[in-house]
């Protein structure tokens, strides 16, 4: 099994607006190690979000290649990219992006439903995952009746329900207080360790850096440095 679940090679990204061409990613190469927690950190506007959009196949880079398990993402059709995300990636968003008219369990079940599982089975699976996140008693609640921390845990459950190999979290603690933020990261860390899942977290919250196996620092569209957690061996 490869040491790296995903990698990016020589990624450049330009945005065009009103005859202006702005480079937001400058020749970035990086590797996401398998079974580890990787944090992509840096100030707002440094290109973190653009980079994870490229890594998950939602944005096409101006140049360079992205590989997921040695599969070239740019060679996939939009449909295949969506299927890849559905089967291999678990996404957790900063704003949760839960559907307000669905219960917590129904929200969690979406990746399974999209993959063709029947509704009752998908709900059963979703409730089981919610129980592991101590939200079993909130399965039938609508998102608007849940606290911010609970909503983020529902979003995490949605990112995990289909047993993805790479969990990608965008600022998962940004909307949470310190305690809830730490709880979420501790939970992701536990999953990465116990189930040997890879987790990529985009954050600028230095309170959670202690959970990272690898921290990739970005600034102005470039990778400034990579730091391994003491005692963590990551092959270059």
């Amino acid at each position: 099994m490869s040491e790296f679940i995903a990698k990016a090679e020589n990624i450049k990204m330009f945005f065009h607006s009103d005859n202006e061409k702005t480079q937001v990613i400058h020749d970035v190469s990086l590797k996401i190690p398998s079974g580890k927690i990787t944090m992509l950190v840096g100030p707002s506007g440094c290109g973190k979000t653009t980079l994870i959009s490229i890594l998950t196949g939602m944005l096409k880079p101006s140049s360079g290649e992205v590989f997921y398990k040695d599969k070239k993402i740019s060679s996939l059709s939009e449909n295949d990219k969506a299927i890849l995300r559905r089967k291999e990636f678990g996404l957790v968003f900063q704003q949760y992006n839960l559907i307000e008219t669905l219960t917590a369990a129904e929200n969690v079940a979406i990746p399974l439903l999209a993959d063709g599982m029947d509704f009752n089975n998908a709900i059963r699976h979703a409730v089981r995952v919610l129980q592991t996140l101590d939200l079993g008693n909130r399965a039938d609640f609508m998102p608007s009746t849940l606290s911010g921390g609970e909503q983020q845990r529902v979003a995490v459950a949605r990112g995990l329900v289909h047993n993805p190999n790479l969990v990608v979290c965008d600022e998962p603690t940004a909307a949470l207080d310190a305690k809830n933020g730490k709880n979420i990261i501790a939970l992701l860390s536990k999953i990465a360790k116990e189930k040997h899942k890879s987790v990529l977290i985009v954050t600028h919250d230095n309170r959670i850096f202690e959970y990272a196996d690898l921290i990739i620092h970005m600034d102005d569209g470039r990778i400034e440095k990579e730091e391994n957690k003491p005692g963590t061996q990551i092959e270059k």
Partner: protein
Amino acid sequence: MHIVALKMLVGNRAKYFGLVFGVMFATLLMSQQVSMFIGILDRTSSQILDISEADIWVMSPEMSYADEIKPMPEFELYKIRGAEGVKWAVPLFKGMMSIKTFQGKLQQIILMGVDNQTLIGKPPKMLAGKWENLREHNAIIMDKSGWDYIWPNRPLELGIEIELNEKIAKIVGICQSSPPFMTSPVVFTQFKNVRKYVPSGRKHMSFVVAKADDGFSPIEVAENISKKTYLQALTSKEFQWRSINHYLTKTGIPINFGITVALGFIIGAIIVAQTLYIFVIENIKQFAALKAIGVTNNQILVMVLIQTAVVAAIGFSIGIGLAALFFESTAHLNTMRGFYLLPEVVMGTALTIIVIMLIASYTSIRKVMSVDPATVFRN
């Protein structure tokens, strides 16, 4: 994902009811108005179709539709009977008159004078009495709408005498006749009585109705009659369509109904398109999240189409139900006789609603399909 689509739809009550209302409104307006329009057009030729024994109508050449009467001299009847292929030909009178009850009540009617011997032109369906009774002295048969106008809520009764042009006439039967274009009741009598009841004029023969002999087509016989006389001879079908065309081209009726139906279409489409678009825009972040999670564009398309189809089905069902309820609840009114919700109108409205939904959902579908899933990572 079908259940997710439905829950997204019904979860937003205000938008959901707005969408259903739009479709319901368009359905009700279009089906009701088109049915009324068809009913009115049917009325313009209902009396032609009521005389099912005849397949040829002969009339003055100046006449262009069934309610424009220019009487012909009675000797023309013999010329028509002499035309090749005519099996039989009988006179028919049609004219507007007033009747008066002995209680002083006045009512305008359409008087039909039918052939003395054969009674061809008689009412199509009797509710009380026998049509043969028309042969009695001073006999008339009145249609039920006339009875209801003059004696509302009174049970049908025969033998009542009324005045027609200050002459006595006795009701010997009550019939059901198709409603004419003018809502006036229809009264039948023998052709020979017309001279007595109609106040002035030498000519009383409004039409001659005829039958083509075996081996002759009605078109052929109509041509033979036209050649032999100076008169205009048409088949029943031709006369029916000529009357309908007259109202279509020479009156404001189709424009009035056309405007209402077009308004139903346009307003329905606008309400649905606008509400559906707002619904999609409000949910755009959620659609982007679904795409980010791995829901494909095809699955999103199916979701929006399911939402559209459900709204269309519910709105259409309620709208058609209300239209049916309207016709059912007004069926007993004389003024609403002959107006029905036709199956063809239901089918046509359903197809139009499908068109409205496709037009209305086009922009929304384009918006959803083009949404960038990466927007979920942006605040």
